[in-house]
């Protein structure tokens, strides 16, 4: 079974600074997707960024970028120029070919605190 591990229960960053959230995963599948989701206190889960395993280029969405290391099974999220609105729980998630890409396996999450 696939597993997703987020080893940082909580991270802190100051406004305008950069923070990196870690995620590792375990799988034997050859094709899969990786995701970062943001869940603010209101609970609505929002997709931040997606990476397809066969693509070597790291995905980027504005201030959010990933460092995808396929051999190491590592998928970290970098948030640049942090803003107060970035404060939330961040979940790393995996979806693989064996499930037909129909299910997401989530990590336990990292709470990001942003201070002025």
């Amino acid at each position, binding site marked *: 079974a696939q597993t997703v591990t987020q080893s940082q229960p909580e991270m802190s960053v100051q406004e305008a600074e950069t923070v990196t959230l870690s995620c590792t995963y375990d799988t034997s599948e050859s094709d899969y997707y990786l995701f970062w989701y943001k869940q603010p206190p209101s609970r*609505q*889960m929002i*997709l931040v960024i997606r990476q397809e395993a066969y693509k070597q280029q790291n995905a980027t969405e504005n201030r959010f970028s990933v460092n995808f290391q396929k051999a190491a099974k590592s998928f970290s999220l970098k948030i640049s120029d942090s803003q107060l609105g970035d404060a939330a729980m961040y*979940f790393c998630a995996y979806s693989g070919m064996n499930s*037909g890409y*129909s299910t*997401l396996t989530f*990590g336990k*999450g990292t709470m990001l605190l942003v201070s002025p």
Partner: protein
Amino acid sequence: GAGVSQSPRYKVAKRGQDVALRCDPISGHVSLFWYQQALGQGPEFLTYFQNEAQLDKSGLPSDRFFAERPEGSVSTLKIQRTQQEDSAVYLCASSLELALGNFGPGTRLTVL
């Protein structure tokens, strides 16, 4: 357009009661997913529909949990004879593409 909506947003049930949680997906979204999120944890997959067909229900924790989507749009997750361990937030997501879900706000179920 409107996102995924769920109702009720909060539900308190006495142990042993049956509950029904509703999900209204984004119009036209073929895929619909239910996840259970316990306090302080990541969401865990419960079940998946493509249109009205329930293609995967491997995550349902017991036969007390039942989900349906009879017309391929609105879905209902029913929990019979609720237990305290059923207390969680139940998230619904819909998608045009597999696994790329637009999540609803969730229903927080508390079983006393």
